Each structure stands twice: as structure tokens, then as C-alpha cells.
């Protein structure tokens, strides 16, 4: 046992954590950007899908249903591989060219494909979360909005969605937490993000323990920072009906407070 521990190069771990190199910094930035973009588009897709599901037109409901069924019923890694290796062939044109030029910025096609795959996957889960969130709002809220002359869209935007947001944000936070970690799957199609950076370091040095502990630490940093941000967002959304402030630790670690059930 002692021998195993002694074999760990603590110095290397310390270096990987406290003095990251340039490639690592790039990978970290890429991980964060991909996670944020995929989550944003995932929420938008999910919102569209949820509204489709509540539509009075059957076609839209069927589209949404099939989308959610297909995405939730297949592994994310398969979706990522399909999006990168299969989508262009399947569609017969280049949905994801080798490089995507956006004026000054040019992005690797693989990053775009990976981000899209994560967003499409996320959209299906967000669809269910948003639908449940909207469903949790009393019908009378929409009726009251209509009774003063609001259209469905305006009532959704001003009255229903802001209230549903409060129900949606906690599970959305969990989703983003998962998203940060799921970006690591993009290593398998060659996106240079945190995990691929670690894997390459390991393959050169044959020091899996050091590299993977260090990368795990960085994922933990990202998810913890997000947890703190989430607390602030939830606090802001709940301002109208939370009489006393709960401690950030309580909210972060999700220990239910007795006061919350009162509403």
C-alpha cells in the first residue's frame, strides 16, 4: 500500500493544478465555452420542444415527442459519433465542414459538431423539465393574463414563464452540472478539451493517476463555481416569496429548509 502511494508523483499533480500550461488553459476555456453554448442552445431547443408539446397542432406535438423519445432513448456517445461522422453523409451535404468561418473567427468543425450534439441531447431533457415547469403553474395565471387582454405569447413571456423559471432553475442547474462533465465525451471525436488534454499527457508519460486526478480536480472546480452561481440565480428568482435568507451552504448542498414547504 505504501509503495503504491509513494509511486504517485505529487509534484506533477501540483503542477497540473497550480501551474497549468498553455495547452491546458486552451482546453479549459474550450470546455467552458462548449458547455455554456451547448446548454444555452439546449435550453432554447427544450423551450421550443416544450411549447410544441403543448401546441394544439398535432404535427408539432408528434415532432416533439419523437425528438424526445429518440434522444433520451439512445446513448449520448452514439449521438456525438453520429453527429460528427454520420451527419454529413446522412444529409448529403456538409452540415459541419472541416472548419467553420465566422468572419474573424474560424472554428474547428469537430467543435461545432460536438457542441451541436450536446445541445440536441440537452434539448430533449430540458424539454421535459420546461414542460413540467410550465405545467406546475396554475391555469388561473394564464386565464387572468388573457382576461386583461394579453395574447398567449405575451402571457407566456410575462406571466407563466417567469414563474415556471423558479421551478425550472434547480433541475436546470443539475443539467448544466452534467453538461460540464459530459463535454469530456467529446474527447473521443478529437475535440481538444480538458479530458483529451489529460489523456494526451498520460499517453506520453504513462502517469494516469497524476493526470486524471488533476483533471478531475478541474472538473470539480468548474462544477463548484457553477453551484455558487446557481445559488445566486435561485435567490434572485425567489426574492418575492422567500422571507428569510437561507445560507448559501444550505442551498448549495441542497439540504431542504423547513420554511420552504410553506408555500
Amino acid at each position: 500500500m505504501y509503495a503504491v502511494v509513494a509511486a504517485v508523483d505529487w509534484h506533477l499533480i501540483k503542477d497540473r493544478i497550480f501551474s497549468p500550461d498553455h495547452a491546458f488553459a486552451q482546453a479549459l476555456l474550450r470546455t467552458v465555452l462548449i458547455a455554456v453554448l451547448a446548454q444555452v442552445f439546449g435550453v432554447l431547443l427544450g423551450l421550443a420542444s416544450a411549447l410544441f408539446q403543448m401546441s394544439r397542432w398535432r404535427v408539432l406535438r408528434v415532432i416533439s415527442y419523437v425528438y424526445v423519445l429518440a434522444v433520451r432513448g439512445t446513448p449520448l456517445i452514439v449521438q456525438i459519433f453520429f453527429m460528427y461522422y454520420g451527419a454529413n453523409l446522412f444529409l448529403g451535404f456538409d452540415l459541419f465542414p472541416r472548419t467553420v468561418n465566422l468572419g474573424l473567427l474560424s472554428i474547428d468543425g469537430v467543435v461545432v459538431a460536438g457542441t451541436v450534439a450536446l445541445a440536441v441531447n440537452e434539448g430533449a431533457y430540458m424539454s421535459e423539465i420546461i414542460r413540467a415547469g410550465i405545467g406546475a403553474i396554475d391555469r388561473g395565471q394564464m386565464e387572468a393574463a388573457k382576461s386583461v387582454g394579453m395574447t398567449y405569447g405575451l402571457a407566456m413571456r410575462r406571466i407563466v414563464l417567469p414563474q415556471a423559471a423558479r421551478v425550472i432553475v434547480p433541475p436546470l442547474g443539475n443539467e448544466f452540472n452534467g453538461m460540464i462533465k459530459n463535454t469530456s465525451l467529446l474527447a473521443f471525436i478529437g475535440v481538444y478539451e480538458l479530458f483529451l488534454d489529460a489523456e494526451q499527457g498520460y499517453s506520453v508519460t504513462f502517469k494516469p493517476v497524476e493526470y486524471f486526478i488533476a483533471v478531475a480536480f478541474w472538473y470539480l472546480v468548474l462544477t463548484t463555481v457553477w453551484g455558487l452561481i446557481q445559488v445566486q440565480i435561485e435567490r434572485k428568482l425567489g426574492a418575492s416569496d422567500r422571507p428569510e435568507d437561507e445560507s448559501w451552504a444550505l442551498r448549495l448542498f441542497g439540504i431542504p429548509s423547513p420554511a420552504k414547504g410553506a408555500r
Partner: protein
Amino acid sequence: MSDTIVKAEQVDKYFGRQRVLCGVSLEVEKKEVVCIIGPSGSGKTTFLRCINHLERIDGGRIEVNGHLIGYRPGKNGGLVEDSERNIALQRTEIGFVFQRFNLWPHKTALQNIIEAPMRVRKVPEQEAVAQGEALLARVGLADKRNAYPGKLSGGQQQRVAIARALAMKPALMLFDEPTSALDPEMIGEVLEVMKELASDGMTMVVVSHEMGFAREAADRMVMMDDGVVVEEAPPAEFFLAPREERTRQFLSKIL
């Protein structure tokens, strides 16, 4: 324009196969206060909701202030449902007060009141706020301007809800059992506001079992049962000498 505010003709309504309104007709004149009573399941609330098209109707027609509500003439002579925008526009003329208030909990009392004037009528904020504050004062809640609904009593919430409906300057106010969800000690304050509204000349249709209010403020009583209007009469006559057996039976139960 005539002085008829509500003109409902032969309104039919089904919930699935069950017929809940069977040819209901009702006219309400300007400044008139009409009180609808009847046993539960008689269709009175459904009828009220049809007047601002919260429920679709399956037959007949309803006009408010000369506008056909919820429908427009179709190509083949029948009626088709109107566009969402037009229906929304028609509803701006009709205030609705719900049994369970339905205030928006994420907005303060004042925000509840100014939301529709600002977003629907595009009234400038300053003007909307001034008007909102005047309305809050009118329902006796000037000091609750910044209170969220969750911090208000039931009676206070309902008064804010009335102010919210009035903020659109409607030609007609509909009340769906406005005091049924209230604790007894709060009923009076809401009825007081409604009585003042009636004496200010607001046209009102009220579904309620508050007989005190009906006697004092109503110009006409309407008794509904099984989806039809059983009897209509001025309150004095209605309470003292109801013509119909069903009315007599119902009154004997609630008085």
C-alpha cells in the same frame, strides 16, 4: 350604439357530451348590475366565462358593447373562431374577477395592476403607475403598493384583483363568485368595493350567493339551473315572490 352592453342569444355549451348550457339568453343594459345565482353545476360560472371567451361556445352568439365575442362570420354563413389578437382586444373591454383571485405572485400589487395597461395598451409607465396608485387607493390598499400577493390576506388580494381588472377601463365587469374563497370576516371588504363600483355606474354581471349584496346592489336577479335561465326578476320581486318552483326551492336552501 345602443345601451345594451351584453347581448347573449341562445348560447349552447358542451363539455364533451354533457350539455352545460342550453340556449341561454341574457341582456344587460349599461350601468345595470345583474346577479346570477343557481345551484352548483347549473352552468352560471361557465356562462360567465363564455362572455369573455375563456370558454368557447357551441351555439348561439354573445355580443359585448356591440362586438361579437370570440367569433367572426365564416365563409359559409356560420361563425368561426376569431383570431387570437382580436379576441385579446375584445377582452380588454371586459374585466374578470376570479373566485381564487389569480393574482400574479411574482409581481407586487402595483405591478399586477399596471402590467396590462403597459404591455397591452402601451400606456407610459408614469401614467400607468399614477393610475395604478389611484386604483389601489380606491380599493383601500394604497399602503400595499409594493406588497407581493403572498403577503396579502384573501380579501386584500381580491381587492387588488378588482383593481387589476379596472385598470383596463373595461365597459363591463364580470365577477365569478368573488367571495367564495374568502374567510367570512373578509367578505365584507370585497362586497363594499363592489357596491361602490355598482353605485359609480359600472355595468356588472356577478355570479354570487351573497344575497345581502344582491338585495342591495343588484338591479336584476337571474336564476339558472341545469344550463337554462329559470327566472329573471328585480331583487324585491325575486326574493319575495319568486314565480318558479325551482327558484323557491333554491332560495329556501340558501336563505
